[in-house]
């Protein structure tokens, strides 16, 4: 990739501005009305000295240097709210914000917290810095045994792309186990890549490290090629987004579905298995890269409604207007950085919304969320009664697995 930004270069604005136009739908940036909708809908827009609209303004004025001298861009959680509400449909998150982050990284300006996640991704194939050999350790004890394709070499119907946090995070491992048990109960012939799976790279890409994203994608592409399967399913909306929208451009193209779509299709088979009543008022949080970016709103809600005893309520921000958990676009690895500046976490804001709509359980469908929201219930006043559960966990509970 050509490096177009150097701190004192007078031509950066021009070069960088024209490089944006070459991206998919990047030409639309010319149509910006400077209406400020993006800045208003951005969950951190009030903090940023240069929210998206103003960045476009600096590019037009040839003073983009001003943006690179602030920390505005590292408050962007790539939630895509700006893109969703832009009246001229400018791909703000996809093109503008991601490219600005890329330029900052090429110029060597990266918050320390983020560097650790990048280094880990480079070295271990996951941002958590865990041993790649232990990627399938979560599966220990599941019966029938989880099929690790590198070991069994058996063709399967479904390749389950597990993802980083689902594989390693202590809060997520029980969720991951729950989903494995559900697949077993449904009689699905599935397999995982285990140690051969690398991070999907989507969050690293959205945080501006395209080089690492491409390296990880290639590794995954090589692993996919070795095995026989009909489709990929994943429990991670970011993996889903990468596989569906980003990998094909790199020549890695497979049919992929999020696990909620996969289970929704089997709802008739699932319903009789949901024996135990889960008497609770549930608010469902739309993950940005499942809902707003990929349009999946109904499948998770229908699954939740099928659990006996569940009453579904909606929070103030819902569907395409959902509020980010704060973990996207590198936010997962900028927690301290963003807290120091904004003194608020988006996850805390969201937990307050769940309480306000009378929910006693916040249901989620992304592996970033259970740890983020559960932490928030510990800091938001009167939130300690609010439970946070992933959809697979709730299903397994009702199935008594």
């Amino acid at each position, binding site marked *: *990739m050509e*490096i177009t930004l150097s701190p004192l270069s007078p031509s950066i604005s021009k070069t960088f501005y024209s490089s944006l136009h070459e991206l998919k739908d990047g030409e639309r940036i010319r149509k910006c009305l400077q209406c400020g909708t993006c800045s208003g809908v951005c969950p951190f827009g009030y903090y940023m000295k240069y929210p998206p609209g103003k960045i476009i303004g600096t590019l037009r004025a040839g003073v983009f240097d001003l943006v690179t001298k602030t920390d505005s861009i590292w408050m962007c959680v790539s939630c895509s709210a700006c893109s969703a509400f832009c009246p001229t449909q400018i791909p703000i998150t996809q093109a503008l914000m991601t490219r600005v982050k*890329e330029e900052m*990284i*090429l110029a*060597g300006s*990266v918050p*320390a917290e983020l*560097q650790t996640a*990048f*280094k880990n991704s*480079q*070295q*271990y194939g996951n941002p958590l*810095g*865990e*041993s790649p*050999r232990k990627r399938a350790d979560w599966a220990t004890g599941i019966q029938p045994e989880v099929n690790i394709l590198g070991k069994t070499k058996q063709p399967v119907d479904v390749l389950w792309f597990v993802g980083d946090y689902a594989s390693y995070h202590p809060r997520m491992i029980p969720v991951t186990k729950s989903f494995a048990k559900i697949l077993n109960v449904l009689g699905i012939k599935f397999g995982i890549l285990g140690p051969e799976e690398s991070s999907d790279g989507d969050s690293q890409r959205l945080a501006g*490290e*395209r*080089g*690492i994203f491409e*390296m990880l994608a290639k590794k995954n592409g090589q692993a996919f090629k070795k095995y026989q399967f009909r489709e990929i399913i994943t429990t991670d909306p970011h993996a889903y987004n990468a596989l569906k929208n980003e990998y094909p451009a790199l020549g890695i193209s497979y049919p992929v579905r999020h696990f909620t779509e996969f289970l929704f299709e089997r709802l008739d088979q699932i319903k009789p298995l949901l024996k135990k009543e889960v008497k609770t008022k549930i608010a469902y949080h739309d993950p940005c890269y499942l809902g707003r970016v990929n349009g999946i709103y109904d499948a998770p809600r229908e699954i939740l409604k099928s659990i006996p005893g569940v009453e579904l309520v909606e929070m103030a921000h819902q569907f395409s207007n959902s509020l980010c958990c704060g973990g996207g676009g590198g936010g997962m690895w900028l927690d301290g950085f963003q807290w120091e500046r904004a003194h608020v976490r988006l996850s805390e804001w969201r937990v307050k919304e769940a309480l306000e709509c009378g929910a006693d359980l916040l249901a989620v469908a992304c592996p970033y969320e259970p740890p983020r929201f559960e932490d928030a219930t510990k800091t938001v006043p009167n939130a300690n009664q609010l439970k946070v559960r992933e959809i697979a966990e709730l299903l397994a509970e009702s199935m008594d697995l």
Partner: protein
Amino acid sequence: MKIAVPIKFVPDLVEELNIDSSGAALDTSWLRLIINEFDDHAIEQAILLKERGGAEVTIICAEGDGVDDILFNAAAKGADQLVKLMGSDAAMMNSHATARVLADFFKEIQPDLILTGVQAHNDLDGSVGALLAEYLGMPYVGYVAGVTAASGSVIARKEYPGGIIGEMEVKLPAVLGIQAAEQPPRYVAYSKINQVSKTVKIEERAISDLDSSGGATVGRMFKPEPAQRAEIIEGSPEEVADRMVGIFKELGVM
């Protein structure tokens, strides 16, 4: 100024370490190796010196898995020459052998300043920096956390216990053992490293006679063993807590 930075790889503690069947060495079959953290700081310090006053930086490493990546990473940060020592037998490469091989090389390229990591977590044989200085007849200062170039010398900043910092002028050529660079090792975009790996060459240098004499010999390597008086309490957190309360009562402290 010509700066040379010899670096080495050490076992990555992300993987569990096992002892091999000889009982005197690590089992290398599952070992993952990473750059010694102090050496990473030595690279950063060298690059900082280059940026501040100009320098030609050479990075030297014995061959091994992942070494090329680390060398390219250093080049992307600003290192000028990359040298890989070929034919190094890992079992023979103690600090004494490494220092002798490096001393031969440095006599040839004559660097003004040699920066090494002050120590490594797998060291059983002392610091390479001090040995190297001895073989080359140069001064050595270890535990350095900051270097400023002066004319014909450098000012090395050394940290002492109790928050005391000493600054000393060291005549060049000299060897410094780096404990920390003035800033954490910088991050380089992966695409930059990729770009560099396509244009920068790694010079391969064969090494022949390895002389590891003078080094320590490992008699036995073993994992920490519980002492006789230690009791490992097993069970659920509740059971462990109950047992501990019982022990405290027996001892009369509760």
